[in-house]
């Protein structure tokens, strides 16, 4: 029997859901422990920066990294882990596509700090300082980066496993394949070719959407009919379908957390152009400009809707006037 | 515009024309530009035979911009407000509303307006109604007042002065 693989899990800017998703594989964790040795897992163990630094190059076989790279400390740490790891898995939507945090790219760093600290409605706490003097000495805070970029723009990544968080089933499928050298896994093999529509059980018609209705204003939703057909913006058609459509199945539109299907670069623009093609298509040749605008304006918060999880990996990446390079 | 009316040497006044359009847009009505002068409005106009009101020609002149002529005319004050022209217009236009807008322009410009309307306006400003309760006659030529007929007093704002003030200011306002 070959030597046990050494694996690790690391989180950067994150809600923690991805880490919980690892625990969610339940007993399988024991199987994993049999096949692999978990050498690094800040969530469960207490490794120090110095310990990692002391590791040999490529000492870790597989490193799962989730979360957004929001701080310089995140960046420094993932760069260090890259040195020590053979294969890095970009785990979860934040690492793969920037995730919800990526919507921060619509504001500049200063605006974000101002909103978060100076102009907040609750207590006016102290504005974060790089260095703070305390009795014990100086405390140094990590610096916020200007923008969020997906993990693969900071370091090379071998595999992508998106999801917010990835479902236990996804990890259960992925882990054995990654741990077994016999099985060949391509970079994006853990993402499906098909979209959420494929597993989605709702009845679909040809799309003739007159205008979109915000879900909270929609009344009389037919539980069996495609939400998009009913005028509710569902990102299903442009979203990778590894999740097996649990949201639409219970009547909630897909918000696009898995990011684009395999082979598609920009989830939001795909969805926007698809929707633009079918919206108001009935009698469109005779529509006045006002009527067309009315249809268009029914798309509320287009960026937030189309790019809720993938703005940093899109071709837009961030607000144009904020490009500082 | 390049039109000149050779009978009066008047030129179209686009500014005044826009004012009509503004008012009509405030009422969500179509502007007169789309009128194709079929004359259906005038064919059925209640005021044409007696008072020579020609809604189609008002539409035509408004469309061309000869607003001054209309605002100064007596014609606009002959409309019986029966709304037949609007109802029957095959182009979904409303001559009667164009006429209202013209009358508003005339008032705003301080033109002399017919005494009946003048009186009505003053009465509304004075006590809220277009006229005061009257003593009327019955068929036997006897006079009757509200009180005689067991009718309650006519409604009137408690603070008429205040309403008056608000009304005075309101008459200076425009729809848009």
């Amino acid at each position, binding site marked *: 029997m070959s030597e046990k693989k050494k694996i690790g899990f690391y989180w950067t800017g994150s809600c923690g859901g991805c880490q919980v998703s690892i625990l969610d594989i339940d007993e399988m964790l024991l199987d994993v422990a049999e096949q692999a040795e978990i050498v690094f897992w800040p969530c469960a163990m207490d490794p120090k920066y110095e310990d990692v630094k002391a590791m040999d190059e490529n000492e870790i076989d597989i490193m799962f990294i989730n979360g957004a790279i929001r701080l310089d400390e995140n960046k420094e740490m993932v760069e260090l882990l890259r040195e020590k790891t053979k294969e890095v898995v970009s785990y979860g939507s934040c690492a793969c596509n920037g995730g919800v945090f990526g919507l921060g790219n619509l504001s500049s760093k200063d605006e974000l700090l101002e909103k978060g600290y100076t102009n907040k409605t609750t207590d006016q706490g102290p504005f974060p300082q790089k260095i703070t003097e305390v009795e014990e000495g100086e405390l140094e805070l990590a610096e916020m980066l200007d923008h969020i970029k997906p993990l693969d723009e900071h370091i090379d990544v071998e595999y992508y496993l998106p999801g917010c968080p990835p479902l236990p089933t996804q990890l259960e499928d992925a882990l054995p394949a990654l741990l077994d050298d016999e099985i060949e896994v391509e970079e994006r093999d853990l993402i499906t070719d098909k979209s959420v529509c494929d597993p989605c059980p709702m009845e679909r018609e040809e799309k003739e959407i007159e205008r979109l209705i915000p879900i909270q204003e929609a009344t009389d939703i037919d539980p069996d009919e495609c939400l998009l057909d009913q005028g509710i913006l569902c990102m299903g058609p442009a979203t990778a379908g590894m999740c097996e459509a649990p949201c639409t199945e219970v009547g909630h539109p897909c918000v696009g957390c898995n990011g684009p299907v395999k082979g598609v670069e920009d989830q939001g623009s795909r969805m926007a152009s698809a929707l633009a093609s079918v919206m108001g298509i009935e009698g469109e040749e005779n529509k006045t400009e006002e009527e067309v605008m009315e249809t268009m304006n029914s798309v509320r918060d287009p960026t937030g809707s189309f790019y809720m999880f993938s703005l940093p990996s899109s071709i837009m990446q961030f607000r144009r006037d904020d490009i500082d390079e | 515009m390049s039109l000149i009316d050779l009978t009066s040497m008047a030129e179209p006044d686009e500014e005044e024309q826009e004012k009509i359009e503004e*008012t009509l847009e*405030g*009422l969500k009505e179509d502007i007169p530009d789309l009128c194709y002068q079929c004359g259906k409005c005038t064919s059925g106009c*209640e*005021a044409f035979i*007696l*008072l020579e009101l020609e809604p189609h020609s008002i539409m035509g002149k408004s469309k061309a911009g000869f607003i001054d002529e209309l605002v100064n005319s007596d014609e606009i*004050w002959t*409309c*019986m*407000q*029966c*709304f*037949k022209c609007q*109802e029957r217009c095959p182009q979904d236009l*409303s001559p*009667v509303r164009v006429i*209202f*807008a013209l*009358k*508003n322009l005339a*008032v*705003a410009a301080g033109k002399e*307006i*017919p*005494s*009946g*309307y003048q*009186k*009505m*306006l003053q009465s*509304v400003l004075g006590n*809220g*109604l*277009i*006229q005061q*309760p009257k003593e*009327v006659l*019955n*068929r*036997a030529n006897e006079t*009757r007042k509200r009180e005689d*007929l067991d*009718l309650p007093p*006519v*409604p*009137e*704002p*408690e*603070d008429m002065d*205040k*309403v008056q003030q*608000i*009304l005075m*200011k*309101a*008459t200076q*306002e425009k*729809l*848009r």
Partner: protein
Amino acid sequence: MKELGLYLGCVIPTEQYGYEMSIREVLPKFDIELVDLEESTCCGAPLRNVNMFTTMYLSARNMALCEKKGIDLYAPCPICHLGLTEAKESLEENPELKDKINSKLEEEDLQYEGSTELYHTLDLLHDEIGLDEIEDQVEEPLDDLTFAAHYGCNTIRPNDLDRPDDSENPQKLEELMETIGIGTEDYPEKLDCCGGQVISDHNESALTKAGEKIEAVQDQGFDGLSTICPWGHRMLDSKQDSAADTIGESLDLPVMYYIQLLGVAMGIEQSRLGLELNLSPVDNLEAIESIEEAE
């Protein structure tokens, strides 16, 4: 019991007392409680000619008074009804104008929301109360009479402003008359104007219009003419003599508010319906008591 704000406008409470009396007498019999709007003023419609904004303001003010009481509004005058409807629809479509008007109403502690439903006599009787209910209350059907209907322009036009009846082929008044036994039929001049709106400045023309309509109805052999509009009634009844003089014909056509006819058919004491105030020869009709009898 349905409560309705009774909004009389200008002409009814200052001279068309017969309409007001019969309304106050008849409607409560149909379980309708009429609530007076003490602070009300002119609806503003006559001022459309002078300043459209003031028109909207006055309409909104009167509706706001009714809203304050939390009840729907009944305007027996079609001109008021049209003015109020127009204001209601305009303000709904134009929130900016609504805000502007509300800022003025605030000075009187009023607020216009747009929640009041509007009724006119025609739809109130025909659609709300209903023909069956009316038929139930008829005691003496007026079987021997044939009347023509006069709707009044603003009752039916313009139809884009939700009128009580169809603009080209209104039939509700006919159906109401038939319900109380009166025979009726269409006549070519049915939709013609009474001239009332220009009486103040074009007296003679207005009276000619009225006279011609009365003459046409009379010539076609109708026993009388039924109205639901105070302006029309004023021209066709109150001023029938002057109209006759103006066109040089002798006119003696009984003209009655429909609601007066209804009251008579219901057996209500005729003096309570203000019938003495109809100046046209209504006592030519067998069913109508002459003034002497009434006394």
